[in-house]
């Protein structure tokens, strides 16, 4: 039952453990694959974790269930920590015990508070790995969860060297979780999924069906027929919003995406706009060389279109004729019309928003984000967001 609870807990933590996994897992236990907690950690991970982005959740669930340590979702050094229930609970208990002054949250520097929190976590993890000290402080444990050994599972302090369990709490996998922000390597990996295979290149593959047909027609004299092989011929257009203050905090992310797309796709072209698209886009980041949007609309409809912008602006910029805030972009037609045309021409298109999805409703740009989101499917610039965007662009 204790192990059943663990499997359910994995699901709570977002690890998609299935019934088949559970059956295989119990079969393995019967074969004696998990004689101690260390092996259980490795074996259960193999049985239930398939993607590296679930690894961190698994480690947290395991630490909670078997070690009684409640690790927060965030990595060390991330100020998001202050918003977690684990931190609030720790603060409450540490103050209650008198280890911190009541007004600590105002008087202490945030870095110092974070350090104190993580030191406590490390102290707890060490207590387990050392094996000498037992967490069973029953209720006094800083994270509230009772750490006593339930169901007869014992923590074995392995001789220490490179125990797999030891890495729990080091959070080696936190970067890979789906909510993680993008970095070079994971972005490259996500973009690699985007391709469009069409017959191209020299005719160098034997077409057996045609060969047999033609040979038969030829009275048995062999007539070899060749066809082209499938090659990736994808075309990508990237439109970047590089104007306005609202995009400033996202410059790094934008630059990263831009450079990766350039590297990944040979047939990629990039254009710039300010806040939203009107009758022309620009070839250069300074927005001096115009390209009429109408010309863009003549591109091959198979082209994958990525629009990168926060979609936050004054509503009239989107909805009104001559709504542009910069004089050089003034246009008789409202931007919304141009966006609709783009969407209509390019079925494989997506709007990428550097603002995290959870915040769309809260930012000042919500009305325009919503309006743009009705035209283009919108995703944010997390790893999960890019993956969904790539799925959309692949027509899945």
């Amino acid at each position, binding site marked *: 039952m204790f192990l059943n609870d663990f499997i359910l807990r994995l699901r709570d933590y977002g690890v998609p453990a299935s019934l088949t996994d559970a059956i295989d897992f119990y079969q393995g236990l019967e074969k004696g694959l998990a004689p101690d907690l260390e092996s259980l950690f490795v074996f259960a991970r193999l*049985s239930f974790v398939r993607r*590296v982005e679930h690894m961190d959740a698994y480690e947290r669930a395991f630490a909670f269930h078997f070690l009684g340590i409640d690790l927060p979702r965030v990595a060390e050094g991330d100020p998001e920590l202050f918003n977690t229930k684990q931190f609030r609970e720790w603060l409450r208990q540490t103050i209650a015990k008198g280890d911190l002054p009541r007004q600590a949250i105002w008087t202490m520097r945030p870095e110092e508070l974070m350090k104190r929190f993580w030191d406590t976590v490390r102290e707890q993890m060490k207590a387990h790995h050392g094996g000498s000290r037992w967490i069973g402080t029953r209720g006094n444990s800083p994270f509230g969860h009772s750490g006593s050994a339930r169901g007869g599972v014992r923590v074995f302090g392995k001789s220490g060297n490179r125990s797999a369990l030891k890495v729990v709490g080091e959070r080696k996998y936190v970067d890979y979780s789906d909510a993680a922000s993008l970095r070079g390597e994971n972005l490259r990996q996500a973009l690699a999924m985007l391709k469009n295979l069409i017959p191209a290149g020299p005719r160098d593959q034997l077409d057996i069906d045609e060969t047999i047909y033609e040979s038969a027609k030829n009275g048995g004299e062999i007539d070899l027929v060749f066809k082209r092989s499938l090659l990736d011929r994808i075309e990508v257009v990237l439109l970047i919003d590089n104007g306005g203050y609202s995009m400033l905090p996202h410059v790094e992310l934008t630059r990263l995406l831009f450079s990766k797309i350039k590297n990944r796709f040979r047939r990629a072209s990039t254009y710039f706009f300010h806040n939203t698209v009107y009758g022309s886009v620009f070839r250069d980041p300074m927005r001096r060389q115009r390209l009429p949007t109408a010309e863009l609309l003549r591109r091959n409809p198979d082209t994958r279109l990525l629009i990168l912008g926060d979609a936050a602006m004054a509503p009239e910029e989107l909805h009104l004729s001559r709504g542009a805030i910069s004089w050089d972009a003034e246009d008789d037609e409202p931007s919304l019309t141009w966006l609709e045309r783009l969407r209509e021409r390019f079925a494989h298109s997506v709007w990428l928003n550097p603002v995290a999805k959870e915040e769309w409703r809260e930012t000042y740009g919500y009305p325009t984000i919503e309006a743009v989101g009705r035209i283009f499917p919108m995703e944010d610039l997390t790893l999960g967001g890019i993956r969904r965007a790539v799925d959309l662009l692949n027509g899945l």
Partner: protein
Amino acid sequence: MEFQGSDKYYLDPELGAIVNIAMVMEKPLLLTGEAGTGKTQLALEISRTLGMDIEVLRCKSTIKGEESCYVQDTVLRLNDARFGTEATGRDVNEFFDYVIWGPIGRAFRSEKRVVLLLDEIDKTESDVQDNLLDVLEDCEFTIREVNRVVRAEKRPVIVITSNAKRELSDPFLRRCYCHHIAFPEPEAMREIVALHFQDLDQGLLDAALAIFYELRQRGYEKPPATSELLNWLGALQHERITPDRLNMPFVGTLLKRTEDLLAFRQGGKHSQIH
């Protein structure tokens, strides 16, 4: 049978446990991780130390899946049908005279238990992976032309590697045990190096490792990995040079991409000015 590393290959204890679990549970083991973390090498070592033959499928984006089980040499058969088979011993009416077995076919037909390595599975199209799913799960495939089933008597030890160039589908992952090989920590790296170089100067190794791990931190497009380090150490040892930060010989063995090399040179210039 238990796998325990070898004199040429440093086996992380955790990875060793995983290999043995996969062998007991008879599940394919999918290894992901950066290039140069020894994914492919692991399969070769399992085969070597346990004395099992190995069949290797090196995946390409063009494979369809079926040819990894078998192909029919149609051109040869057409040719034989047209010009006769007199001296060749083949019979045009005999389908199996024209079958060429692929790695999966050979592994399943083998009388002994073998290691089957599917290298860089992520290079294939996702529908190919889906086709291979059932083949690997049931350890059997059907020869369409003659409707004959080929089934493995001894389930092979299946190792699959992926560089994560592309995502693998969920059903595929569900059939496997998946393990992400993290890049070796400096102490583990010392053990790996020790397996390849017997009499390496300790000072040289310390200096080289420090620079190596610092380079990896700098966020290059293709960060140097184990094989680059080993090549670099080989070159350094041969030329009897101990590197330092201002004098970086053979940097081309560590950094392969042009942008990375250019970025490194610029970084180098800056540090000389300061």
